[in-house]
């Protein structure tokens, strides 16, 4: 072969190579700045405890997600595209499994939009990874640490410090001014342990004496020891922080059976439907917080409650409510991003986004990326098994 032919061949190969590189780069750029085009599908992933002891929270949240996708698509989708839950990962409420699950959704399934875990330890573990992978990540944890200072991480649940303050405020109003003796009982899970720490600090700052502070295993068989201690300590007020499991109702029932007759206030876990069912008449003796308005719901909340019950044969709670809202917020953010579906654009569009969800009003800002504001909470109690408002 002469040198002119060789030079032509080499130049040709270089041109082909350059074209291939250019096409790859173009493909990457196009993928990175993908848009929802009419007739396409907007895919997202779900990471949560679908099995194991925390599935009691994760499984209903998945149902909330599915219902949201159905409702959004029935209303025409987002920017002409259908939304689709493309993949799920089960972390069983464990941080290490959650990290693996997040990597699987992003690196294997290729998803940039993830509705994330609902349990605190996975939430804390996943947030830095999600930020480094630059995926839009909407958690369902009641902590502010995961999203503080992050650009890609958000939460659909109000930070529990807001709840803790409301629980304490109710007891303070009930007991009146002065020094009082109180008891605090909390589930042996990180969410409730953090709640106890806050209540303990607030009580001591108010000059109260915590005469009994004890935890309980949400997977335990009986709570008579804890109940007996409360009754023996005879506090003027009792604050309980639950784990959102039926054990919370059993504990309340046994505390009343042990003879404690004073006022009791619990966190939002005591607003779940199994509390009046499992605690019986003891449920009438506790005040708790409620976000999902099941007493006088708005039209959209009523639609959610009715559809959820019909589809899944169980009553909706604030947990699937948060998941339902999370998907709607994603849809709203995509619209706000000019129909762009890449994580960077959607995350940027979250700042300044306001959304009226079934759990209350959401407003995401550069500094606050958590769930509905304090105004979304109401105090409720039970009368003959039915939730009623109280003060």
């Amino acid at each position, binding site marked *: 072969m002469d040198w002119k032919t060789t030079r032509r061949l080499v130049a040709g190969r270089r041109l082909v190579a350059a074209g291939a590189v250019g096409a790859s780069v173009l493909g990457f750029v196009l993928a990175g700045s993908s848009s929802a085009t009419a007739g396409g599908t907007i895919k997202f992933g779900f990471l949560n405890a679908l099995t194991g002891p925390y599935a009691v929270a994760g499984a209903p949240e998945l149902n909330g997600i599915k219902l949201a996708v159905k409702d959004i698509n029935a209303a025409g989708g987002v920017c002409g595209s259908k939304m689709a839950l493309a993949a799920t990962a089960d972390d069983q409420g464990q941080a290490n499994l959650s990290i693996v699950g997040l990597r699987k959704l992003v690196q294997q399934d290729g998803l940039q939009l993830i509705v994330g875990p609902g349990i605190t330890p996975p939430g804390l573990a996943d947030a830095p990874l999600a930020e480094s992978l630059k995926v839009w990540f909407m958690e369902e944890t009641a902590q502010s640490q995961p999203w503080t200072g992050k650009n890609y991480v958000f939460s659909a649940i109000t930070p529990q410090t807001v709840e803790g303050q409301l629980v304490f405020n109710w007891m303070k109003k009930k007991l009146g001014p002065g020094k009082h003796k109180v008891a605090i009982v909390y589930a042996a899970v990180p969410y409730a342990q953090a709640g106890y720490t806050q209540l303990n600090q607030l009580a001591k700052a108010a000059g109260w004496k915590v005469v009994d502070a*004890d935890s309980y295993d949400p997977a335990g*068989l009986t709570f*008579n020891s804890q109940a007996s201690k409360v009754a023996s300590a005879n506090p003027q007020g009792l604050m309980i922080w639950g784990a959102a499991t039926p054990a919370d109702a059993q504990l309340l029932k046994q505390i009343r059976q042990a003879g404690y007759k004073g006022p009791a206030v619990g966190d939002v876990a005591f607003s779940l439907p199994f509390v009046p069912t499992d605690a019986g008449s003891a449920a009438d003796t506790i005040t708790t917080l409620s976000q999902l308005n099941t007493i006088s719901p708005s039209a959209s909340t009523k639609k959610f409650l009715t559809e959820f019950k019909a589809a899944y044969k169980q009553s909706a709670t604030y947990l699937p409510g948060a998941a339902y809202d999370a998907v709607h917020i994603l849809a709203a953010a995509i619209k706000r991003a000019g129909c762009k579906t890449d994580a960077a654009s959607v995350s940027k569009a979250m700042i300044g986004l306001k959304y009226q969800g079934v759990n209350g009003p959401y407003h995401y800002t550069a500094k606050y990326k958590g769930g509905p504001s304090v105004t979304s909470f109401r105090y409720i109690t039970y009368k003959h098994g039915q939730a009623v408002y109280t003060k």
Partner: protein
Amino acid sequence: MQYISLTISGITLGSIYALVALGFNLVFRTVDVLDFAQGDKVVLGGLVALTLVNDHVPLALTFVIVMAGGLLAGVLYQMLVVRPSLRRGPDVAIVATVGALLVMSSGHVLIWGATAQPFPAIIGGSVRIGGAEVDAQDFVVWGVVAVVVTAVTLFLSRSRYGKAMLASAADPMAAGAVGIDVRQMRVIAASVAFSLAGLAGMLIAPITLAGGTVGPTLTLKAFTAAILGGLTSTGGVVVGALLLGIFEMLVGAQVPFAYRDPLIFAILIVVLLVRPSGLFGVRERLA
């Protein structure tokens, strides 16, 4: 009154552990395997019973169906889980039972959901003992445990099948040589253990709810009770279970919850250092 109430609660809790521990005891003495799925079999029994009760099946018939179902399930369990793994040694069989525990605990959630559900009381009302209110349901649990432990003890020590089952576990080759069908004995043992677990599930559910995540807790506590009392002694596991239940209640009322289990297990270690076979277990000699 507080101590009476706690002791009574402890006896009920210990009775629940005893029902599960008896399953451990029966399988260990006859198949020579520690079955870590026993707690989840109890949960399964409670959930099946709840399904039947919700379908308006009378309670007495539900009992019969759950126990009969347990016998059948035990046969399948022995054939599919224990026998194939036991061929490779008892350690492998133990691991297989842990696998069965995971399958069952996840299976419960897939079929019945993750939330524990209320179960109607078998018998309502309560009685006052020493100033403490005792649910009539608790008496049912105590009574059933007393009947079951007597029946199992008599069966293993006095009946032909019982002695054959013990012989099969002690020396399968020798048992086979004298005409005992070792496989059949093991199947019977597994069936009875599964059926007992189903019975336990029905008795426990009105007290602790049906379903949920109590399976591993039950397994751990029942195993602890069995080790404490002596895994080879039927009466011993029951005494161990009752002691554990009462101790948990009394100690739990004095110390923070976080210290209770470490304290209990520390005491268990001390007991085992002094009595390695448990309080009533018999140390076996090879020759």
